[in-house]
């Protein structure tokens, strides 16, 4: 008897919850997973936020994403191409050292994003391969490729210069950009040997513990 009451009340509770959700999704046209507490409506992007670029990108899972999906965590952004034999792998190694040097609490709150110059060769499969090769953790690293126009736009806001040579390799600036959680450029580090200690300090400043 007791059990059945429990069953009934649970069922009733479930029904009520289901109703509430139905109501919620009825009044709100935005789809969201039922009953997960949602955050307050997103603030508009700031004047200098890179996430105002409404371009679409493809990640190494073949999923289409907007840059604004990176919002919420500071990001370290580097433009690269997977077949680069020179600076790109070095930069990635340096960023991995930085990642390893971050305190675990901080590491969970930042992201590393690699965006490819090579719209032709850096398919999701090629990016996936790159991720495996360099053991880039899916929790922290985002790998993206996009159309030549989108690459041009992003390079423009980052101030990255690049050029494809006759061999299909890209010459490019080696620029490491630190974005805050709103997608604004906080600092840029030029060259192959960024001061990791300084980067670390800058990142820590952006994290609210």
């Amino acid at each position, binding site marked *: 008897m007791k059990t059945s009451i429990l069953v009934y009340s649970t069922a009733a509770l479930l029904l009520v919850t289901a109703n509430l959700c139905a109501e919620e999704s009825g009044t709100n046209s935005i789809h969201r997973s039922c009953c997960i507490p949602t955050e307050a409506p997103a603030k508009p992007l700031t*004047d200098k*936020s890179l996430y105002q670029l409404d371009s679409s990108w493809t990640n190494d899972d073949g999923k289409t994403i907007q840059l604004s999906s990176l919002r919420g965590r500071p990001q370290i952004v580097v433009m690269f191409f997977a077949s680069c034999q020179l600076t790109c792998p070095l930069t990635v190694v340096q960023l991995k050292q930085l990642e390893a040097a971050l305190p675990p609490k901080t590491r969970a709150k930042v992201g590393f994003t690699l965006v490819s110059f090579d719209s032709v060769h850096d398919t999701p499969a090629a990016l996936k391969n790159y991720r495996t090769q360099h053991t880039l953790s899916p929790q922290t690293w985002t790998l993206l490729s996009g159309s030549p126009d989108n690459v041009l736009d992003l390079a*423009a806001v980052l101030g990255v*210069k*690049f*050029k494809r040579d006759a*061999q299909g390799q890209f010459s*490019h600036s*080696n620029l490491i950009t630190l974005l805050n959680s709103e997608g604004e450029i906080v600092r840029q580090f030029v060259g192959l040997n960024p001061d990791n200690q300084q980067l670390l300090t800058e990142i820590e400043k952006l994290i609210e513990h």
Partner: protein
Amino acid sequence: MLKNIQLIFLATISAWTTATRAVEIPPVNMVRIPAGVYRPFFRAANDPKEIPVKSFALDVLPVTTGDFLEFVRTHPQWQRSQVKHLFADDSYLKNWDGDVNPGTNAPLDTPVTFVSWFAARAYAESKDKRLPTVAEWEYAAQASSTRADGENDAAFKREVLQWYSTPAPEKLAAVGRGPINFYRVRDMHGLVWEWVLDFNTAMVTGDSRSDGGIDAQFFCGAGSQGAQNLDDFPAFMRYGFRSSLKADYCVHNLGFRCAKDL
């Protein structure tokens, strides 16, 4: 019977040529620039000596203040008080009196300046056009008034050089007063610098893997060893200028014109 076949044949040919021509006719206020070859001024060891340029349409004139006024009226997000500063720095349309009022400092028939690369792109897009590439712009700009290969026209080279060595005047002249070039394009030289689509691909070293002081290398004579034609000082200046630009820069003497695929 034979005559009939001939007639059909002729009809087909003429229909075919008309169709081809129809595609090739440039839109109003644009001219067709025939296909050709652009020899980049700067080249790294791996770069091609010649870049083929497909035929394309190019605006006869730079975009004027009046044209741009019409654009910001219909695209308020590009008005001075509305523009996002990711896309244009604080100098955006600085010489205008107000959002939709260019005022006396920017007469309607002068080329629009103080516009960023993003704003230029947005304008072009609104007209279903695009910005020309470096290759296209340089290719069209090398024509003198009488020949496509202006580099072999001494008088033309002197004129151009003179403009590049004169500072931009406080008040810009109206568009359409400069000489008409071989392709019937005006004001490529002598009025304003112009944005190009791929301005951020202009690099002197061609290989920034050893990058570190690209600006120093750019303006240092030693950096010009990859140059194609050492006496083409204007081309060198344009390369230097482009390499110093950032996409949100809005500058007094930097405007743009649009291109379109044919």
